[in-house]
């Protein structure tokens, strides 16, 4: 290679990389990875009642807390509803569509109950995440009268805990650890790790401040740089879709395996059950009644997502456990949403997690009906 060609090669390489990046990033200006993850035409909604937030995601919990405080001042009973993306996602969202929590509030108002539902949810929330969400209320001194938990079988395979929630935690008192047991101790350990990371010697250094300033300037000056997060998500989705298609083709052509049944490792079930155990213990300690419900699932059997036997066994066990405990109730809502109200995933398959407005109505109504019934009859209510 001649001496002058080498620098030119490097320069052209540099420029081609830069221009490719700018071009690719600018294509992503309309792409919303969060919504994409929910499935085709499925969108996130935050619910309000009289201009007060009644639902929140990990980054929008403050308005819900403020509303909770206001409700407490008026001595209104509060039910905290915790779950995964089913609670905040609506398929084919149109104006006027509501979340289940809105329908539950409307139902409670209609029957003249002095009860408000507040919802917090995050995608793929396992029981540790729900436990963290509950602790986030507790640390603010906000103790509900009811704790409603969406039990999502698929999320039992979620290992780890969501950092966006852990970051909002404060120190967990010893008394809480004593009351909650291992599940909440695990949350504390994970929080300590996140805190240690946040307190690392590189935090708050001049370099970190310089870096923030540079990145913010790059976002304002280099075209497309602010969309790099979306480009990363798009790249990741494209790779995963490609691998999935490859796998599907392989399976179809070889007949190696006809259906894909996600595995839920036993140790993860056991680990998540510790968090559920902690949730129950803390709720009972806080004199809060608890309703754990089996999340609605698409009813058609051929599209059932999991190993039916293991799925049923898990919920049978859960139901049995709830029956044995005072003030802890179990509700099976698996088949309350008819086939036509469910969405479609990005790969065009039937969505078993997210549904339309009509389904939110059914879910919200069912929850409030059962809360009403349980408030009157307790364990004698039909479950």
């Amino acid at each position, binding site marked *: 290679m001649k001496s002058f060609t*080498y620098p030119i*090669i*490097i320069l052209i390489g540099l420029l*081609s*990389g*830069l221009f490719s990046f700018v071009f690719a990033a600018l294509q992503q200006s309309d792409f919303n990875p969060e919504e994409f993850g929910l499935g085709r035409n499925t969108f996130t909604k935050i619910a309000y009642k009289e201009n007060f937030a009644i639902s929140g995601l990990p980054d929008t919990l403050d308005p819900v807390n403020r509303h909770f405080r206001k409700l407490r001042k008026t001595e209104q009973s509060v039910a905290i509803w915790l779950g995964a993306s089913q609670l905040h996602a609506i398929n084919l969202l149109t104006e006027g569509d509501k979340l289940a929590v809105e329908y539950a509030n409307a139902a409670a108002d209609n029957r003249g109950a002095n009860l408000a539902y507040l919802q917090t949810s995050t995608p793929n929330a396992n029981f540790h995440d729900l436990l963290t969400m509950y602790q986030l209320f507790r640390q603010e001194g906000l103790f509900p009268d009811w704790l409603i938990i969406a039990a999502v079988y698929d999320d039992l395979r979620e290992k780890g805990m969501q950092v966006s929630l852990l970051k909002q935690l404060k120190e967990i008192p010893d008394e809480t650890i004593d009351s909650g047991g291992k599940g909440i101790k695990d949350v504390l350990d994970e929080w300590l790790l996140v805190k240690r990371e946040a307190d690392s010697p590189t935090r708050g250094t001049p370099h970190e401040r310089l870096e923030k300033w540079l990145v913010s300037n790059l976002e304002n000056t280099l075209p497309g740089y602010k969309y790099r997060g979306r480009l990363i998500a798009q790249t990741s989705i494209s790779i995963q879709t490609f691998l999935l298609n490859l796998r599907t083709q392989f399976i179809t052509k070889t007949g190696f395996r006809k259906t894909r049944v996600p595995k839920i490792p036993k140790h993860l079930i056991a680990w998540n059950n510790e968090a559920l155990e902690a949730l129950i213990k803390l709720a009972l300690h806080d004199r809060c009644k608890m309703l754990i419900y089996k999340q609605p699932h698409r009813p058609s059997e051929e599209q059932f997502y999991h190993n039916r036997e293991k799925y049923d066994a898990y919920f049978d066990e859960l139901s049995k456990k709830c029956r044995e405990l005072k003030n802890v109730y179990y509700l099976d809502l698996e088949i309350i949403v008819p086939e036509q109200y469910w969405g479609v995933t990005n790969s065009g398959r039937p969505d078993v997690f997210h549904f339309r407005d009509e389904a939110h109505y059914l879910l919200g109504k069912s929850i409030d009906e059962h809360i009403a019934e349980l408030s009157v009859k307790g364990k004698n209510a039909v479950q």
Partner: protein
Amino acid sequence: MLFNSWGYILFLVIAVLCHWILPHKYRLFILSAFSILFYSMWRWEFSLLMIFSACVDYVASGQIYKTENRTTRISWLLVSLTVNLGLLVIFKYTYFIYDNIRFIGSASGQELPDLGIRIILPLGISFYTFQTISYTIDVYRRVIKPVNSFIVFLTYVTFWPQLIAGPILRAKEVISQLTSDRKFDINNMSAGIERIIIGLFKKIAFADNIAPLVDNAFAFDPSLLNAFDVWVATFLFGFQIYFDFSAYSDIAIGSARILGIHFPENFDWPYLALSPKDFWKRWHISLSSWVRDYLYLPLAGKPFMTESTGGITVAAETDSKGKRTNALFFTWLIMGLWHGAGWTFALWGVYHALLIFIYREIKAADWLIEKLPGAAWALMLMLGMAAWIPFRSESLSQAAIMFSKILNPLQYTFSTRALFVTSYYLGVMTVLSAMLATYFIVKYINHQSEILKNALVYAKIATIGFMVFFILLYMRPVRQFIYFQF
């Protein structure tokens, strides 16, 4: 300052511009000022510690050179060693020493309180301490003359490309380059930029993407893992640390090259080694060369060498067997503890010493390397990767459980696999295949004619373009380099 950051790119551009624009007589000031700025971007107060360390060695080496009196020379050498190693012990090993004292106390029924102080490990202290020690010892050994100017010495010690994580360079390799009137060379500049791009790409594309898998795998309860899981975890960590550390070396070498300074290579395809001895000629070459010259060869009673290249040289069979075996194990124990203040690191060092010892003692190893190099490579790859188990483990018990898994034939089953996920296995296979493919491509291209090389110009442009694209997309200083903690 982290290399994998926009802050460093900006810093480098400004430093390089100042270096080449200003006259030669200002260059050392420019380099030392920028080096201290580079360090101070982390915590300025620790740059004073580094300057203090440099002052001690500057004075001590001058005094050693000035006199022929053996006692005086040794005294000044001891001053240097005591100050440098003392600082290293205080900042790096206080917790470790105290924890061990507490453990012994607890075993004998005496509970000691927590240390009650928070010690922050100054970045790069292990590296610049070794560098300053080597300088003073080299003066003591009369390998080099001490420099007359403190600014020259300070620039040598603090020179930012190698300050935080090496390569650990000898004074005679760097000082003459620093003081020479270097001329701007566009090819040096291009080669430096290319090397930096490669380093950033290795760090961002490989090391940072493998890291979460490794963190997850080693966070698992080890008793739930089977042998395949353990192998996958250790292979992944082996790749992570290689890409991470060699990336740092690439950026260091590239940054120096832009300034017209040539650093020796620090890695040479270590996972293609055929034996432990071979591995240490390919992995962190400047450290193994340092250990060779300042620990191993003197302890083995052999003449030392004076370059930061070549890696480890095992003493010949004609030497005293006991002496060289002791030297071997002691050296690697120190090497292990240099990496981290913990018994897991010591175990890692001793494991490597054991490998070298076994290969030296068993004649079949030589036969295997000569007759079946493919099998020798595969065996060494497995043995070398297994060494990372204690290195990455949180405790000796975790390392012991993981070792027990891979040594137990009954653990080689797919039915109890905990680390599921195919992506872990795919990751290992992909990186290993890519590494081998890259090696053969590089080797093949290097041996071809000029015509073919020119034909590959487009491929090179595309590769650089792809790497730049990737760097722009993913560069965030989210993960510091693993070797920063050493």
